[in-house]
C-alpha cells in the first residue's frame, strides 16, 4: 500500500482538510450574515475522504461530484474566494454566480461537474473515463457520490458500462448511511459493494474517518486504474455529521476548535460522540501521537488556513451580484 510517510505530505493533507472545514464554516457565517436561502449540503465530517482523493489527482484528471460538493472543489484546488462567491451568487464566483452551491465547476482544475440531481454526475464521470481512455493521456476520471446514488438506476448502468469497457474511473462512494437506518439510501443488497462486485468491478472498503487509510486505499486504486485501465470502487464509511441534512447552514456541532484534539475535556454537549471521532481532530491526535507535529505546528497551520479563508471571505463579500442583463445570456455556446 502506498502510504504517506513524509511529514510534509501529512501536514499538507491536514491543511487540505482544514481548508475544507474552515470553508464550510465561512459558508455558515455568510448564511447567517446575509440570511440567504437555499439548500447547502456541507462537507463537514467527510474531509478525510475528499482530501485523500483530491491530494492524489494529477493535472488533467477529471472530477465529477455531488450536491455535497464544497469540500471537493476547494480540496481540488479551486480558489476558495471564488468558490465562496459562487455560493453567495456573486459575479466573481467560479461560474459567475450562475451555478451556486449545487453546480460549481472549475475548468482550470478539471472539476467537471457537481449535481443537485442525485445520480446526476455518475454518468458524466463514466463519459469522462471514456474520454480519458480515448484521448490516451493517462488521465483518470473520478466520481464522488453518496450512498443514495446506488438507489438510482443510472449508477448500475454506469458501473456495467465502465466494467464492460474497462474505463479508468475511480468510483468513490461516501457512505454516510448506517445499515438499516435508511436515511439517505434504501438498498436491498446487504452491502452496497455487492452491486459493483457483481459487475466485476474491483472493490475496497475503508474507514472514512481515517484520512491516511483512505489515502492508502485511493493510492492503491489510482495506481491500478492508471496501470490496468479498469474502474475501481471504494466505499468510504463516514460517520454522518449531525448537521448533514439541515435546511439552513448552522453550527450544529460548534465552530471547530483544533485544541480539542489535545484538550479533550473541552468536548461536551449532545454531539460530543461525533466530535470525538471526527476526521480532523482524529488526524491531529494521530500526528501528535506519532510526533509528526507539535501542538504549535498544528495551531500555526490552522492559523494559516484561517488567514486564507479570511481573504476568501473578503473577496466574496466584495464581489457584486451579477447584472440582470447577463442572466438571460449564455444558454448556448
Amino acid at each position, binding site marked *: 500500500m502506498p502510504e504517506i510517510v513524509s511529514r510534509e505530505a501529512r501536514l499538507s493533507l491536514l491543511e487540505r482538510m482544514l481548508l475544507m472545514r474552515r470553508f464550510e464554516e465561512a459558508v455558515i457565517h455568510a448564511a447567517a450574515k446575509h440570511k440567504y436561502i437555499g439548500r447547502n449540503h456541507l462537507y463537514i465530517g467527510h474531509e478525510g475522504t475528499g482530501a485523500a482523493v483530491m491530494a492524489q489527482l494529477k493535472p488533467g484528471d*477529471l472530477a*465529477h461530484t455531488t450536491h455535497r460538493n464544497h469540500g471537493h472543489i476547494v480540496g481540488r484546488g479551486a480558489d476558495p474566494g471564488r468558490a465562496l462567491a459562487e455560493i453567495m451568487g456573486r459575479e466573481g464566483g467560479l461560474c459567475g454566480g*450562475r451555478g451556486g452551491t449545487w453546480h460549481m465547476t472549475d475548468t482550470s482544475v478539471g472539476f467537471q461537474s457537481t449535481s443537485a440531481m442525485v445520480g*446526476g454526475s455518475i454518468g*458524466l464521470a463514466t*463519459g469522462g473515463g471514456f474520454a480519458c481512455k480515448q484521448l490516451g493521456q493517462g488521465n483518470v476520471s473520478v466520481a464522488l457520490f453518496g450512498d443514495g446514488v446506488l438507489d438510482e438506476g443510472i449508477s448500475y448502468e454506469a458501473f456495467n458500462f465502465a466494467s464492460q469497457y474497462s474505463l479508468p474511473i475511480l468510483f468513490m462512494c461516501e457512505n454516510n448511511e448506517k445499515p438499516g437506518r435508511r436515511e439517505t439510501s434504501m438498498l436491498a443488497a446487504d452491502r452496497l459493494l455487492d452491486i459493483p462486485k457483481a459487475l466485476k468491478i474491483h472493490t475496497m472498503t475503508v474507514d472514512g474517518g481515517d484520512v491516511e487509510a483512505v489515502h492508502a486505499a485511493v493510492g492503491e486504486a489510482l495506481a491500478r486504474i492508471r496501470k490496468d485501465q479498469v474502474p475501481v470502487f471504494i466505499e468510504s464509511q463516514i460517520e454522518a455529521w449531525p448537521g448533514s441534512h439541515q435546511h439552513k447552514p448552522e453550527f450544529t456541532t460548534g465552530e471547530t476548535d483544533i485544541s480539542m484534539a489535545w484538550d479533550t475535556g473541552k468536548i461536551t454537549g449532545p454531539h460530543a460522540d461525533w466530535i470525538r471521532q471526527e476526521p480532523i481532530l482524529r488526524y491531529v491526535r494521530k500526528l501528535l501521537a506519532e510526533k509528526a507535529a507539535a501542538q504549535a505546528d498544528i495551531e500555526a497551520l490552522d492559523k494559516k488556513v484561517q488567514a486564507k479563508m479570511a481573504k476568501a471571505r473578503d473577496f466574496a463579500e466584495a464581489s457584486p451580484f451579477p447584472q440582470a442583463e447577463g442572466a438571460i445570456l*449564455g444558454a448556448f*455556446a
Partner: protein
Amino acid sequence: MPSEKMLTVKDAILEALFEEMARDDRVCIIGEDVGVAGGVFGQTKGLFEKFGEARVVDTPISEPAIFGMTVGAAMAGLRPVVEVMFGDFITLVMDQLVNQAAKIHYMSAGGYTVPLVLRTAVGVGGNLGPQHSQSFHAWVAHVPGLKVVMPQSPADAKGLMKAAIRDNNPVVFIEDRTTYNVKGPIPDGDVIVPLGKANVVREGRDVTIVAVSRMVQIATKAADILAGEGIAVEIVDPRCIVPLDRETILASVRKTSRALVLDAGHLDYGITGEIAAIISEQAFDYLDAPVARLAAPNVLIPCNTALEPLIVPNEQQIAQKIREMLNA
C-alpha cells in the same frame, strides 16, 4: 446537375458521419447496435469496420447512463454522436439531457461546452404503435440550451449533420424514418448547412406553408395539386426548430399574406402553436386570414394499419385547408 450524385436521406447522413469521423478523430458514435450490427435501420453501416470499436461503441440497453456518459465525454474533449434508437426513448435520457446537457454551458458561465449530437429516428407509418412512433421535438425545443434539427432532403440531412457535429452545443437531430429512402442530389465536397437557416423549398405568391421534416414532402404534394388549380404555394422549411429562422418565415408571410403551419407531431402545445404565434405577433398587419394549423390530433398513435394513416395530415387535407383560407 450531372456531377451531383444521388443518395437517400439515410445514406446521406451516413456519408456525413464517415466524413466527419475521418476529419476529426474526436468524433465517435455511441449507441445500441450502432457497431457490429450497423444500426437497426442500417444507418451506421460500415462505420464499425472502418473506425473500429474504440470509436463506434456498442452499448448495453442503458439509455440514461449512455447519454450521461456522452455528456461527460463531450465535456472532456470528445465530439460524440449518440444514437437513441427510437425517438420515443428520449424519455429515458430526459434527465441527463434537460438537467445536465442543456444547462452545463450556462451554469459554468461558459467554462464547459457540451458538443454532442443526439441522433434519433421518429415517424408515424410503420405500424409501430404508440411507443415507437412519437416525436418529442416540441419537448426538447422547449428547453433552453438545446438545438433541434429536423431535416427532410438528403442534401440538407448531410449538411446539417456536419454542422451539428461541429456545433459546440448539444444538438438533438431528429430524423423521420419515412424520409430515409427519399433520394436526392448531394453536392460534391464538404458542404455545411448552417443550423438556424431556413430554406424556401418552393416559391409562390398566394400562401406560405411552414413545415419541417416529412411535412415538407407532404406539403409539396399538396402544392402540386393546388398548382393545377392556379394556386401558388410557397413552402418554407426552417430545417431547425431551434434556433428558428424567424426572418425567413416572416418575409415569406409578408409576401403571401397567408400562413399555414404544419407538423407531424401533436397539435396541442406543439410547434405549430409557437410558429403561428410568432407570425401573428410579428406579421399581423400583413395577414389576410388567421394563421392556420394542421398537425396530428391529440391521440396516441394507434398500432393499427387502418387508424395510423389518420394521424399525420395528408396532402388532401392540406390542399382543402388552403382552399378554405383563400375563400375566407
